[in-house]
């Protein structure tokens, strides 16, 4: 670790400049995460913080790695990289993506043990949202093109703007799309265009997807393999 830390000399910047850049990136990540409620941050945005003043080609990668280390040592946050590996099955027109490029994005995830997080850190005022996120992802995992049908069975309607706990249900679903748990796709079918939902990169991320399968199988009381087939 210390070796890598001293390697910035190859970039022709001083330690102070390096520290300043790393701090900027860390701050950007923290503030942006707060501003957009946990929507992933594009790698491009982070690189830009570096390249706007410094030309060295591999400096952004180095700085981002340093920032990742600092987020972990100072805050106990992991900078998780999400791969947009599954483009939407229909055309890209709805989502603004870079053509062809595997756009990396980042979210920060607490590295604290789950019990500690739950007891001391979790904001209980938002647990209803986390709960809903889990439910929505599970349903999409099992039956993606029928999300609203299943939500209706639980008493959540598309037109409902005043649900006592969730408020505007449709808006919350939109937030899940922005946070990249889900993605929306339009399909032109015989009845006109229908909207259906797929899992997006945040829900497809290894640990998340594993946990969800575990929980689903607990609820359904079947084993993991069967869940996949559904």
């Amino acid at each position: 670790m210390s070796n890598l830390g001293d390697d910035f000399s190859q970039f022709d910047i001083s330690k102070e400049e390096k520290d300043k850049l790393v701090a900027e990136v860390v701050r950007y990540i923290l503030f942006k995460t707060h501003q957009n409620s946990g929507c992933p941050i594009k790698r491009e945005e982070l690189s830009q913080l570096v390249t706007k003043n410094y030309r060295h080609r591999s400096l952004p990668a180095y700085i981002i790695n340093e920032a990742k280390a600092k987020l972990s040592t100072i805050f106990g946050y992991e900078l998780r990289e999400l791969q947009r590996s599954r483009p939407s099955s229909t055309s890209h027109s709805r989502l603004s993506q870079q053509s062809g490029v595997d756009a990396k994005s980042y979210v920060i995830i607490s590295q604290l043990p789950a019990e500690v997080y739950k007891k001391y850190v979790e904001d209980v005022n938002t647990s209803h949202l986390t709960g809903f996120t889990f439910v929505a992802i599970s349903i999409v995992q099992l039956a993606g093109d029928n999300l609203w049908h299943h939500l209706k069975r639980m008493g959540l309607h598309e037109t409902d703007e005043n649900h006592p706990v969730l408020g505007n249900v449709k808006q919350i679903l939109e937030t899940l799309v922005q946070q990249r748990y889900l993605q929306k796709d339009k399909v032109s079918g015989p009845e006109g265009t229908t909207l259906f939902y797929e899992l997006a990169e945040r829900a497809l991320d290894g640990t998340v997807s594993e946990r969800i399968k575990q929980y689903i199988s607990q609820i359904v009381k079947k084993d993991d393999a069967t869940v996949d087939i559904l």
Partner: protein
Amino acid sequence: MAVLSWKHHTLIQSLLERGPLTEKEFHFIFTGITGQNPGTHQGKFNDYLLKINRELSYVQLDLRACRDPYDGRVYFGVVNNVSDDQSKLGTKYSVPQIAFFKAIVEAIAQDVTAEGTICNLDALNIKLENQVLNSSGLQSQDVPAAFKNFTMSHKEKTLDQLVKDKWLCYTEDDNIGLGIRSILDLRSWFHNAGVPSCQVCNEAGFKAKLCPNDGCAVRIHHYCLKKRFYQKGMLVCPSCDTQWQYQPPKAEPIEVEDEETEPVQSQPSSNPGPSQPSLRSKRKRQRLDNVETAGCSSQASGANRKRVTRSSAHPR
């Protein structure tokens, strides 16, 4: 080599995720993860905070404590020290909303009576155009459209959101005061804006008691006054020698905890209030001893309207 452990991280993350916490809540976390009470292990607690702040300084953040002048309680929070491009992102509020908030803060801070509040009606009547003029001397036709279109209902919604996010608070008498986030965050702003400090603790005295002698500029926070009064039995103005009156609280039991608070002030905190009720009813219960009355005579109808829409069940 890891300087901070998961325990330090828990403390930091709890403040980042949950926002400012009361001393009680924060100490609860500390006790839970270290097994030691900050009250009895002051040194260890301070050590933790010192270590945390050393690391946080790398990113110009600060874990600090301050006392809320409205309820006298100490709160902890993580605060940003530098206003740069990144921090300007860290807000969900729009430009006119921020201008509106700024105007309210200024009005409260510059109130010569040091009530620490602005009445609801005055807040809603704030003209954003004046904000623009004040800051950059622009002609009125240069006022952005967003400012001109900032309606009364926008202002009301913004007020509600600001209170919910703890930048502002609703006080007992249906006025608007500064929320705990503002108090944590704006410390240096208060000093720069020339808000007179409390004679006792030297923190900003935008909500404080003024010396009864009109010609004297001394002001002292209510809780600072209480402490002095109990210690010495009476208070004489340090600057003009006038005697200060002090009325002890009528309803709340006198419990002055001897808990030292870290790192800024060392005053006892007396907080008989419960921890989680809605903002407005919490303030009501704390302020039964309140001597002041904010004087907004045309307040009545506005206040009634508000009380109906907010369903906090306080017995009025």
